[in-house]
């Protein structure tokens, strides 16, 4: 801030200062990634060739991981595992979104329903969903159902909670304004409550989606014969460290892509918010 005001004082236009700030930010972001890979490379290579602190097999260099990836794409394994994980995540997430938004909306609108539902939700919410995974496998078997149900369970909570908050805390003056313009109860819900709660609901969906990815990997560690979690766990059995790292990297990349897409969607849907214009 002070740097900017100083540059202003020096007679530089605000726009130019801002542009330079943006360029600097981009440069630093790129540097962050470059630095990360450089350190990874340095540690891997130096350890293998010079210091020999630990077995070089334990930390393959980035290009070894890349080659492992190319090999797995060639055999079709990687695509299969990505697709398996994504399909589970999408199914579980959609189920959670549907139930979470529907129940959240109902609870947000009815005080009595809230009294009825909230204590149970608050009791279950702090329990890490992973604690239920073994039971889910017992109940739903080791097939797809248990994984989809598990994801749905984990993703439900943030979606439900943010939806309830969004519906409950609509500015009452907006409701009054709508009523004075002739809106019926139904109109108020459709034209005021829902759009007002939308930012909250979208935040919940984004968190829920992130959580879905978070838990699917764990689920695939335990009981699966496909998916990125399976890929990592399977590679561990055969001590293919490069493949393990590859699995993690792919999960990171997918998470990044989806988060970016969801943020874009959010900015579009909520373009009326000043801060969403960024």
């Amino acid at each position, binding site marked *: 801030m002070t740097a900017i005001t100083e540059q202003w004082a020096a007679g530089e236009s605000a726009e130019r200062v801002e542009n330079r700030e943006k360029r600097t930010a981009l440069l630093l972001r790129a540097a962050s990634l470059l630095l990360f890979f450089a350190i990874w490379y340095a540690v891997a290579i130096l350890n293998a060739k010079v210091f020999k602190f630990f077995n070089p097999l334990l930390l393959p260099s980035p290009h070894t991981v890349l080659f492992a990836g190319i090999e797995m794409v060639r055999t079709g394994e990687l695509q299969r595992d990505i697709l398996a994980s994504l399909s589970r995540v999408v199914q579980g997430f959609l189920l959670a979104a549907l139930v979470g938004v529907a129940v959240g909306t109902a609870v947000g609108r009815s005080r009595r329903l809230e009294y009825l539902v909230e204590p149970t939700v608050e009791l279950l919410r702090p329990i890490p969903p992973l604690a239920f995974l073994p039971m889910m496998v017992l109940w739903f078997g080791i097939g797809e159902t248990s994984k989809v149900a598990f994801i749905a369970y984990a993703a439900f909570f943030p979606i439900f909670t943010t939806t309830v908050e969004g519906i409950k805390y609509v*500015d009452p*003056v*907006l409701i*009054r*304004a*709508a*009523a*004075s*313009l*002739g*809106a*019926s109860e139904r*109109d108020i819900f459709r*034209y*005021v409550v829902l*759009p*007002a709660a*939308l930012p909250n609901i979208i935040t919940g969906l984004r968190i829920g989606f992130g959580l879905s990815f978070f838990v699917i990997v764990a689920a695939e560690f335990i009981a699966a014969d496909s998916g990125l979690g399976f890929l990592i766990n399977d590679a561990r059995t055969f001590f293919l460290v490069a493949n393990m790292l590859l699995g993690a990297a792919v999960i990171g990349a997918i998470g990044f892509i989806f988060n970016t897409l969801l943020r874009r969607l959010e900015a579009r849907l*909520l*373009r*009326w*918010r*000043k801060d969403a214009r960024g």
Partner: protein
Amino acid sequence: MDGSMHTVSAPARTKIRIAGAAKSYNGKVALDRVDLQLAENSFTCLLGPSGCGKSTLLNMIAGFVPPSTGQILIDAEAVAGASADRGVVFQEYALFPWRTALANVEFGPLMRRKPAAERRATAQHYLELVGLAGHAAKFPSELSGGMKQRVAIARALANNPSVLLMDEPFGALDAQTREVLQEELLRIWEQERKTVVFVTHSISEAIFLADRIVVMATQPGSIKDVIDVPLLHPRDRSGPDFVAMERRIKQLVREEVQKLGVM
């Protein structure tokens, strides 16, 4: 400038009749029995310090809160809930932030299920009336406070209500914007005759705008005095009659503020 109010010989019809309306919350009286009749197309200001129940009275007329006892009649019919025939303008603007200026003004016609083309035309007409024709596509977050309140006024008018209720609409605006909007409001009121009830704590605002000023008392909220403003429009804020009236009402309001104790 406009003498029509004074040349009409027939007595104006009563539009709003407040019949012994009172409001208490948890046994505490917010507003004591009020009896008041407001003529059709009149401009009434409810004036008083905070805690005098002026907003409570307005909210009862709007139908947002029911009176604890008594009732409020509009065209001899008891108020039971909000209605599109009573437009409301709020101090906090209360615009729908996800709707553009135009879409905000379209809201009333949309609720009455008017066809899209008609909604648009109506909204455009009223945006023009408040001087915002060029800002139709902007979201409220892109408008200044004064512009937001213009949109809110256009939105209330687009339903063509017979009553316009305004709850300290210019309270959050700076002094210059405030005066401009007061003048615009009078211009619009000349054009679109409505029965206006306008809540304010500004004495000069009340004298500038109103036919009648209802000065409210505190503890409990009630009517202290009803003062007719015989000055012709446009009113000169520094004219001797204006200033004399201001002084007189200031005295009345001060007594009520002093009842509240510490200022």
